[in-house]
């Protein structure tokens, strides 16, 4: 695959910075600071419309600008706000690699992600820890980008050894901690997360968390009951995404979602968990087990799984989705798989059984019970 030159990408980055500044001069600057654990990311928007569209999914994570040191800054603007439009991207379609990644010939300082569907362009200057995010128009931001915005930028901005944006869900409760829901798209992560939410359990995410495997300082907003150094899943997006099957299975949640009748065939309904069920949304949960769901139908069954099964479920979907990952996340997830027990969950038809399975896992872990490698009776320990 051919690549643009490093100079081409650097020059495009400089033009993009100038376009962001010009956009802010035209439509005004809106600043938001998001806090994920002990890391803060500043968003500098050109205009209210984009700030509103992007920030909505992060509302519980918005903090005062001076609350904590800012770790990285993302500058955001819309092509449509520039009178003469934005610069064309300096790469051809053939130079866009897997996961939308565009790297210079040496792959060093400036890298870009050109995303499908949204046509969002994320630019990263690795040396300056500076990020740019450009979209065609805030009003045309697709549903998935509104539900879980800025994933490539946040993956890069928040990554460090032992801490990564990971494709996994997390549910549980404040007393017993949480389970990490591991698996590729369609495995049942969201189904289990919604079942837990509907049953009144705590919700951190249905499919993306900031996972800190070896935390030292965790910041000030973790709940009580964390052991030092325990893995933590931080909430990123205050949303849950419901497909047609979820809407039918969880009518009480479906009733809280607007615009269901207008959904396109592949479109998911976005549940604003922060607005509709604020008490259920926690900023973080300590991770006490990995739960590997698989859609099966019929009765829900739970059994012990190996650490390798947990890693198989966790690692590939994150490693292959995140454009900036070069294998670092794999080592972190292996570390997690070694530290907490894993369970396999055959996802059946009844939501109550799914919530009961999560409950059983948390009880088993709290009691230190070593579950056998055979089906476990749901709720047997309560």
């Amino acid at each position, binding site marked *: 695959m051919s690549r643009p030159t490093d100079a081409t990408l650097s020059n495009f980055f400089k033009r993009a910075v100038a376009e962001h500044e010009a956009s802010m001069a035209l439509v005004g600057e809106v600043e938001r600071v998001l806090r994920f654990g002990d890391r803060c990311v500043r968003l500098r928007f050109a205009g209210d419309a984009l700030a509103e569209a992007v920030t909505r999914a992060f509302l519980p994570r918005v903090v005062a600008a001076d609350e904590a040191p800012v770790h990285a800054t993302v500058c955001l603007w819309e092509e449509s706000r520039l009178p003469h439009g934005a610069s064309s991207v300096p790469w051809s379609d053939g130079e866009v690699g897997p996961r939308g990644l565009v790297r210079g010939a040496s792959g060093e300082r400036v890298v870009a992600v050109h995303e499908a569907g949204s046509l969002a362009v994320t630019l990263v200057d690795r040396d300056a820890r500076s990020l740019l995010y450009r979209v065609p128009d805030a009003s045309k931001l697709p549903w998935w980008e509104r539900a879980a915005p800025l994933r490539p930028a946040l993956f890069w901005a928040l990554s460090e050894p032992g801490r990564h944006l990971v494709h996994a869900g997390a549910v549980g409760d404040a007393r017993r901690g949480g389970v990490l829901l591991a698996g590729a798209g369609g495995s049942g992560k969201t189904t289990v997360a919604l079942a837990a939410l509907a049953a009144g359990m705590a919700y951190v995410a249905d499919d993306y968390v900031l996972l800190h495997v070896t935390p030292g300082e965790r910041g000030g907003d973790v709940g009580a009951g964390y052991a030092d150094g325990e893995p933590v899943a931080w909430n990123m997006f205050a949303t849950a995404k419901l497909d047609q099957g979820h809407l039918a299975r969880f009518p009480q949640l479906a009733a809280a979602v607007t615009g269901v009748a207008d959904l396109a065939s592949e479109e998911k309904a976005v549940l604003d968990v922060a607005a509709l069920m604020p008490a259920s949304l926690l900023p973080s949960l300590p991770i006490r087990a990995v739960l590997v769901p698989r859609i099966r139908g019929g009765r829900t069954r739970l059994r012990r799984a190996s650490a390798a099964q947990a*890693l198989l479920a966790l690692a590939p979907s994150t490693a292959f989705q995140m454009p900036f990952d070069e294998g670092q996340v*794999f080592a972190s997830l292996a570390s997690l798989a070694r530290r907490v027990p894993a369970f396999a969950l055959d996802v059946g038809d009844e939501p109550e059984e799914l919530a009961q399975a999560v409950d059983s896992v948390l009880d088993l872990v709290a009691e230190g019970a070593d579950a056998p490698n055979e089906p476990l009776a749901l709720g047997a320990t309560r």
Partner: protein
Amino acid sequence: MGRVFSINNPHVVHETIDGETILIHLGTGTYYSLDGVAAEVWGLLVAGASDSETRTRIQARYDADPALVGESVGSLVEQLLQEDLLTHHASDSETPRAAHDAVVSAAGPFVAPVLHKYTDMQEFMLVDPLHDVEADAGWPHVKTD
């Protein structure tokens, strides 16, 4: 004498947990698992043992037909090369100390080593990320028509 190998860095990452090895090839979107004898073979190869040394070590550990053991180990090594997980770069002159230490547990019955291959995520790597994506769902949902 035999061939010695290196992991195909930086494209391949691997971790071994409780005797099972998981490998991800970041360039192809394929991932793999190795357990039992296969994980032992992997451990020896990445510790610097040659293919001939690896065959000899596995043959010595199991009470099984040496020819069968040697053939199945050789077959696995070829698969690892074909899948671009290993590259061979030289012939060995002396087996590194790490390879001598790589297998320490007692052997059970011999089960021919198997490379389990998973291709369900290849779509992340193989599709055109701008044009082959479902318009209503976005990346990473691939068009099915």
